[in-house]
């Protein structure tokens, strides 16, 4: 579990290169560092639901990223707020 305010990094993983998958972590945020805003609850893992497999409930977080780190042309203090499952996050 991660706490609000904690710094996290989105795993820089690309399972779509390996075969059919269904992933709810946008490509542009992989490998990026953000901050946990809040825990949103546990939800069945969509990566399994998409294939009608039994889906374990996983923690979902709202994570904030600074836009400037992702797209340099952006206004640096503008933000992105994204729902990301805990299994996609790591401590940097």
């Amino acid at each position, binding site marked *: 579990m991660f706490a609000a305010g904690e710094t996290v990094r989105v795993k820089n993983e690309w399972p779509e290169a390996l075969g059919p998958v269904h992933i709810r972590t946008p490509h542009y945020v992989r490998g990026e560092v953000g901050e946990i805003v809040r825990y949103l609850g546990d939800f069945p893992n969509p990566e399994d639901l998409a294939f009608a497999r039994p889906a374990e409930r996983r923690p979902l977080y709202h994570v904030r990223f600074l836009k400037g780190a992702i797209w340099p042309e*952006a206004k640096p203090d503008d933000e992105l707020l994204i729902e990301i499952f805990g299994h996609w996050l790591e401590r940097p």
Partner: protein
Amino acid sequence: MNILETDSARLLTAVRTLLEQKGIVSTAEVMERMATTDAANPGQGGRMVAKAWVDPAYRALLLSDGTKAAEALGIMMRGMPPLGVLENTPEVHNLVVCTLCSCYPRAVLGYPPFWYKSASFRARAVRDPRELLASEWKTVIPDAVKVRVVDSTADYRWMVLPVRPAGTEGWDEARLARIVREGDMIGVTVPGI
């Protein structure tokens, strides 16, 4: 030919006929569901916004639990994804997008508009929201206001609580609700009078 490449209207008719024959989904059920889905509309979200503008306790509920706030106004939320509400302030402007598909707060706003589902909106909203809003909607977010783009990627659905426009002092809820548009609650526009 791949059977899935059949003309879509014919495919729908064939699938529905088979599901009906098998007793899985009846036409009556589909029609009933269409009617309830058609009933959801931006006026519902507009009522929530207007109430939040005049009632501080309701505003607090809306921001802490959008689902309960919708239910408090009689909006059916059972079976719908949880609703989160993000507040625009003089410091922050929120914009909702779903870059992966088209997640939209349908329970309170109805069907997503055409533009929300378009590739160009999905691509541009996260990367250059200020230019997108200015060029397409003539919505100019001042430099001093932070833009927060909310990419709706998972199990929540997100709605924006816009800033109450100046000049509406003393208005009642019903009158306020009428100035709130669909786009105001996604963040592509801001309400005005």
